[in-house]
């Protein structure tokens, strides 16, 4: 295995383009190193992206949005008070990934590129309307986060392409987000169901909403029916009932050791209801 630590994304892409064998990119390494050890992947070329300037930065954009570097760890994300104030749901999703030790290394981009339908940081990004910047041999493109995973373990990235940053839109006033997951333990487990809600209020009324479900389909879902159930309402009981029903209807889970299908369908509704209430409270605060 050859280890590369390029100084630019251009250089990283050139190394990947010139490689004939198996290539892996390395950021936090909390998935890649486990796969290496298990013998699941034996890269010929391992390209460490952490030495590229800017990859550790969290930057406020002129429009009020945020650019998050691909090597920013969960611990660094959680320590950024302004970002947490804008997007608490995005941050709380990431902070549920692994232990304190894993938080010291694991990244949003890595969690996304690992392609797990149960990835805890992805529903929050989807609900937020986050996008990724992708650079490859044919130039640069932007993609909404919900279009990055295409099936378990597989992303929409073409060979040689790299995500170079994640962008969160401007939060604006009277807006809030939240992420909840169900696990049978209190920490350090994989989501049985996850749900993120992001909404914007005008007075007491919901004017915009994005609701995302994790671990109930081959990829994290963005559910328009859930948004439609609460837009125009004050999130009263009738709206919450509709929201829960829409979430359960959108959930198409498998039964596995973490939970049976029927349970996941039901819990998707429960979590949507609870996450929406938290997001609403945060928007009012």
């Amino acid at each position, binding site marked *: *295995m*050859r*280890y590369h*630590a390029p100084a630019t994304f251009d250089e990283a892409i050139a190394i990947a383009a010139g490689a004939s064998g198996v290539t892996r990119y*390395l950021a936090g*390494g*909390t998935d890649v*190193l*486990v796969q*290496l*050890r*298990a013998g699941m992947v034996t890269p010929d070329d*391992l390209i*460490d992206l*952490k030495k590229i300037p800017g990859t550790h930065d969290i930057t406020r954009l002129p429009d009020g949005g945020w650019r998050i570097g691909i090597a920013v*760890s969960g*611990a660094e994300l959680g320590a950024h008070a302004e970002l947490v104030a804008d997007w608490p749901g995005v941050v709380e999703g990431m902070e549920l990934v*692994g*232990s*304190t*030790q*894993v938080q*010291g*290394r694991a990244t949003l981009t890595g969690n996304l590129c690992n392609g797990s339908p149960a990835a805890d940081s992805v529903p929050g990004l989807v609900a937020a309307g986050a996008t990724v910047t992708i650079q490859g041999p044919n130039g640069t493109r932007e993609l909404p986060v919900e279009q990055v995973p295409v099936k378990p373990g597989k992303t929409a990235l073409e060979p040689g392409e790299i995500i170079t940053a994640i962008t969160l839109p401007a939060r604006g006033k009277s807006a809030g987000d939240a992420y909840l997951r169900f696990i049978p333990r*209190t*920490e*350090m487990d994989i989501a049985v169901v996850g749900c993120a809600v992001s909404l914007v209020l005008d007075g007491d009324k919901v004017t915009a909403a994005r609701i995302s479900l994790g671990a109930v389909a081959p990829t994290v879902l963005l559910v328009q029916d859930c948004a439609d159930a609460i837009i125009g309402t004050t999130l009263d009981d009738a709206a919450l009932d509709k929201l829960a029903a829409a979430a359960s209807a959108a959930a198409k889970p498998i039964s596995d050791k973490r939970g049976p299908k029927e349970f996941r369908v039901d819990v998707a509704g429960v979590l949507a209801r609870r996450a929406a209430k938290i997001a609403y409270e945060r928007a009012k605060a």
Partner: protein
Amino acid sequence: MSKIHVQATVNGDSVEFLADPRETLLDCLRDHLDLTGAKEGCGTGDCGACSVMLNGRLVSSCLVLGVEAEGAEISTIEGMADGNELHPLQRKFIEHAALQCGFCTPGFLVAAKALLEKNPDPSESEIRFWLAGNLCRCTGYDKIVRAVQDAAAEMRGAA
């Protein structure tokens, strides 16, 4: 397989070693630098026995490649005591008998020290949550939590 020259700072000392790119930081600490305090429990980032500080962040050294440590500041359990003077956490672990076989202890100590630097007065649930990535298969968790609470109190000057 060509080895890569790595230069880093470990417990305040400048060190250098030759790392095979496949070797983890844990392998390098133990096999090249003879710092065998950090243990390999699982090798997959689940047990916390290999906990070290890397550039001020608590990490599992089995999930870091040795070659990634170029230019890094690393602190291990070996740097915790000041000469013969044990760190309050080390003393309290002994006083509370917060160890049985001892394999997980270096990881618990490094992780607990990182917590107290961030939060000098953690609640019991904050301690348990922070240390959730450190596994003790002798199941001595209660004594470990008590030892951390007692050390924290002493370090705050309240003991």
